[in-house]
C-alpha cells in the first residue's frame, strides 16, 4: 500500500508539473511532494511502527526498517530545503540565461522523479532491486547536472554516467556471485537482505570476499571513493547549487548505504577481517587524496566537493572498525555530513550568483568584499566550514571524536595518519576562507558592482540547516540515541 501511495503521489506531482505554466507552480509541486514524504517518514519514526510489516508496504521485495527510514528522513529534509532554495536560485539561472525556460519542466520532472527513485532504493529489500534504483539515480541526477547550457556540464555529466555505470556493472556481477552463494545455503537462492543476513554465517569466506570486492567497486564509485572519485568534483562543482546539495547530501548516501548493507552481511562471515582491512585502506587513501587535492583548490564548490570525498573516506574507516559504537557514530556522521554539506553548497550557490560573471569553470574564485555584498552566505561558509571540520557545538565534532577513539583500538597507525590528514583538510578550508574572504575591491570598482539580491527562499534553508546542526551538536535526545541503536542492532553488529 505504501509503495502504491508513493508512486501515485509522484505521478500526481509529475502530472501537475506538466500542466503548470509558471516556474513558481512547478517549484511549489516539488516542495509539496518532498514535504508530503517528509511527513510520512516522520509519522513512522514518531509512532515507532518500524519495521513496517510487508503487507502494509505492498511487496515482499521491499521493506522498511530503521536504517531505511533514517536515510529517507535525510533525503526528504534535504529535498524539501533544496526545493525551497531552488525557488530563488533557478529564477536567477533563468534571468542570466544559463537555464532555458523550456527546460524547466524537464528539470522539475526529473527532480520529483529522482526523489521517488531514491526512496524506493532505500526501501528495497532485494539487493538487485536496490542496484537498479541506485543505477537509475545516477542517470536521473546526471540529467540534472547536464541541464545547464554549457559544454562543461555535459562533459561532467557524461563522465559521471560512465564512471558510475561502468563500476555499477561490476557490482551487478558481484550480486550474481552473492546470489550463487546463497543458492548453496537456501533452495532457489535469494537476494533479500533480511534473509541473507540470517543465512550469512554459512557462507564460504573466499567467495564472499570476491562478491564483496565486486559489489564494493560500484557503490564506491557512487559514493566517490578513491580511485573512482574522479567524476565527483566536476559533477558537484558544475551542477546548479540546489542540485549539488542533493548530489552531496543524498546521492553519496545511496552508495554508502549499499556498502553498509553488504558489509553487514559480510560481518556475519569469516571474511570480515580481510574486508575490514580493505575498507580501512580505501578509506585512508580516499581521505588522503581529498586532503591533498583540497590544499591546492581555489574553487569554492570544488573544495566543498573534495570535502565530501574526505567524509566518505572517514565513513569507510568507521565501518572498517565495525564495533557497535563505531557503527553508531558512522550513522550519526552520515546525517551530520549531509546537512552540513547541503548548507555549504547553498551558501556557495549564493556566492556563485553574486560573482558568477567573473567565474569561469576552472578559474580560481574571484570573490571580493563578500561580507559587504553577501554577509549571510559568507557566514554560512564560515560556520559550515567550522561544522565540517568538526568544531564543538556542531554534530561532526562528536562523530569524528568517537570514530577516532574507536579507531585507536583498531589500528594506531591508521589513527595517526587520519588525524594528520584531518588537520590538512581543516587547514585547507581555513586557508581558502582567509585568503578569499579578505579580498577587497578597489574603491573605484566598488560602485560598478552589481549586487545580487538574494531572495529569502535562498537564505532560509541555510539558516534552518545551521540551526538544525547546532541543535544536533548540543542536544542528544533519548529517542535519537535509541533510534540509532536500533539500526545498529538490526544490522547485527
Amino acid at each position, binding site marked *: 500500500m505504501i509503495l502504491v501511495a508513493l508512486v501515485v503521489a509522484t505521478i500526481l506531482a509529475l502530472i501537475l508539473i506538466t500542466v503548470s505554466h509558471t516556474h513558481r507552480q512547478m517549484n511549489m509541486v516539488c516542495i509539496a511532494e518532498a514535504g508530503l514524504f517528509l511527513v510520512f517518514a516522520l509519522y513512522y519514526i514518531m509512532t515507532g511502527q518500524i519495521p513496517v510489516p510487508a503487507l502494509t508496504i505492498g511487496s515482499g521485495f521491499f521493506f522498511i526498517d530503521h536504517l531505511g527510514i533514517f536515510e529517507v528522513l535525510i533525503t526528504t529534509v534535504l529535498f524539501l530545503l533544496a526545493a525551497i532554495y531552488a525557488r530563488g536560485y533557478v529564477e536567477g539561472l533563468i534571468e542570466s540565461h544559463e537555464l532555458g525556460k523550456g527546460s524547466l519542466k524537464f528539470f522539475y520532472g526529473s527532480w520529483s522523479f529522482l526523489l521517488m527513485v531514491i526512496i524506493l532504493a532505500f526501501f528495497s529489500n532485494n539487493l538487485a*532491486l536496490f542496484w537498479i534504483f541506485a543505477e537509475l539515480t545516477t542517470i536521473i541526477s546526471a540529467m540534472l547536472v547536464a541541464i545547464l547550457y554549457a559544454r562543461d556540464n*555535459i562533459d561532467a555529466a*557524461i563522465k559521471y*554516467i560512465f564512471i558510475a555505470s561502468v563500476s555499477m*556493472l561490476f557490482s551487478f556481477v558481484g550480486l550474481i556471485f552473492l546470489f550463487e552463494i546463497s543458492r548453496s545455503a537456501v533452495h532457489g537462492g535469494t537476494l533479500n537482505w533480511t534473509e541473507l543476513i540470517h543465512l550469512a554465517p554459512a557462507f564460504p569466506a573466499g567467495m564472499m570476499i*570476491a562478491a564483496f570486492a565486486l559489489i564494493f567497486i560500484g557503490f564506491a564509485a557512487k559514493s566517490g571513493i578513491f580511485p573512482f572519485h574522479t567524476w565527483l568534483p566536476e559533477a558537484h562543482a558544475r551542477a546548479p547549487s540546489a542540485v549539488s546539495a542533493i548530489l552531496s547530501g543524498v546521492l553519496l548516501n545511496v552508495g554508502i548505504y549499499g556498502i553498509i548493507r553488504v558489509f553487514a552481511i559480510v560481518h556475519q562471515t569469516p571474511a570480515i577481517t580481510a574486508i575490514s582491512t580493505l575498507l580501512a585502506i580505501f578509506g585512508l587513501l580516499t581521505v588522503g587524496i581529498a586532503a591533498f587535492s583540497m590544499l591546492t583548490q581555489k574553487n569554492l564548490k570544488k573544495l566543498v566537493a573534495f570535502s565530501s570525498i574526505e567524509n566518505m573516506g572517514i565513513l569507510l574507516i568507521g565501518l572498517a572498525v565495525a564495533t557497535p559504537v563505531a557503527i553508531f557514530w558512522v550513522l550519526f556522521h552520515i546525517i551530520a555530513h549531509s546537512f552540513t554539506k547541503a548548507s555549504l553548497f547553498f551558501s556557495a550557490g549564493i556566492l556563485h550568483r553574486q560573482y558568477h560573471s567573473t567565474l569561469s569553470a576552472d578559474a580560481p574564485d574571484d570573490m571580493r568584499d563578500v561580507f559587504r555584498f553577501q554577509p549571510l552566505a559568507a557566514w554560512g561558509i564560515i560556520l559550515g566550514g567550522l561544522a565540517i571540520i568538526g568544531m564543538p557545538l556542531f554534530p561532526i565534532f562528536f562523530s569524528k571524536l568517537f570514530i577516532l577513539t574507536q579507531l585507536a583500538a583498531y589500528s594506531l597507525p591508521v589513527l595517526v595518519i587520519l588525524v594528520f590528514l584531518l588537520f590538512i583538510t581543516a587547514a585547507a578550508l581555513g586557508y581558502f576562507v582567509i585568503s578569499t574572504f579578505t579580498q577587497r575591491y578597489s574603491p573605484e570598482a566598488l560602485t560598478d558592482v552589481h549586487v545580487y539580491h538574494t531572495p529569502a527562499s535562498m537564505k532560509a534553508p541555510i539558516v534552518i540547516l545551521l540551526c538544525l546542526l547546532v541543535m544536533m551538536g548540543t542536544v542528544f535526545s533519548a529517542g535519537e540515541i535509541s533510534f540509532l541503536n536500533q539500526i545498529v542492532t538490526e544490522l547485527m553488529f
Partner: protein
Amino acid sequence: MIDPSPLPAIIRILLVVVIITAAYIISTRNLITLVSVYAFQSLTLVTMALALYSYEGGTVLLAIAGITFISKVLVIPYFIATIQERVRIKRDIEFHYLNPTTSLLVSMALMLFIYIGLSKIMEGTPARESLVFFGAVIGLSLMLMGMMVTFSRKRAITKVLGYLSMENGVLLFGMFVTELPFIIEFLIIIDLIILVMLTTILTVGLDSTLEDYHNRLHRFHLVEDTEEGP
C-alpha cells in the same frame, strides 16, 4: 538428456563468435559498422539463450531472449544509428591511452587472467569442467573488453557502445552462472534504454560543433521550441 547432442558444440561456437565481435568493436575505427556489429553480438546472445533453453529448459531464458532481441537487436541499434546520421560522424580515430593493437593484446591478457582467477574461485565445484565455466570466462572477458572501449575512446557515442557490450558481457555471465528472476533482467533493460537515450542525446551536443549544439539540443531535449533544420 542426450549427451552427444550438438548443442554444447553450437554454444561454444557462438561464444567464440561473441569474442570475435568484441575484438572488432575494440579495434574498428568505423562508427557505422560498430552499431551493426553490436546488433550482431546481441543477436548471437539471443541465439545462445535459445540454445541454452533447449539444452537446459527454463522459461526465464526464453523471456530473456525475447526482450534482448527487441531491445538490443532492434530498438537500441536503430536509435543510435538515427542519432549517428544526424551528427554525421563516421569515424572515431581518437584513442585515449590505448591504440587498437595494444587493446587487443591487453584483452588477450585479461582473458587469461580471468580464466586463471575463475578456475581458482570455482575450484572443486562441479561447474568447473562444464560449459558454465567457459561461458562465465567469456562473459567476464566481454565485460572487461567493453570497459576498455569505454575508457579508451574519446567520442561519447563509442563509449556508449563500449558500455552496451559490457552489459552484454554481464548478461552472458548471468545467463551461464545463475538464474536471476526475470523482473530484474527486465528492469536492467529499462535502465539501459534510458542510459542510452540520455547519453546519445548528450552526445549530440558534445560531438557536433558548439554552434549547432543549441539547435540540436532543442530538438531532442523536450524543449518547447520550433524545430530547425541541421
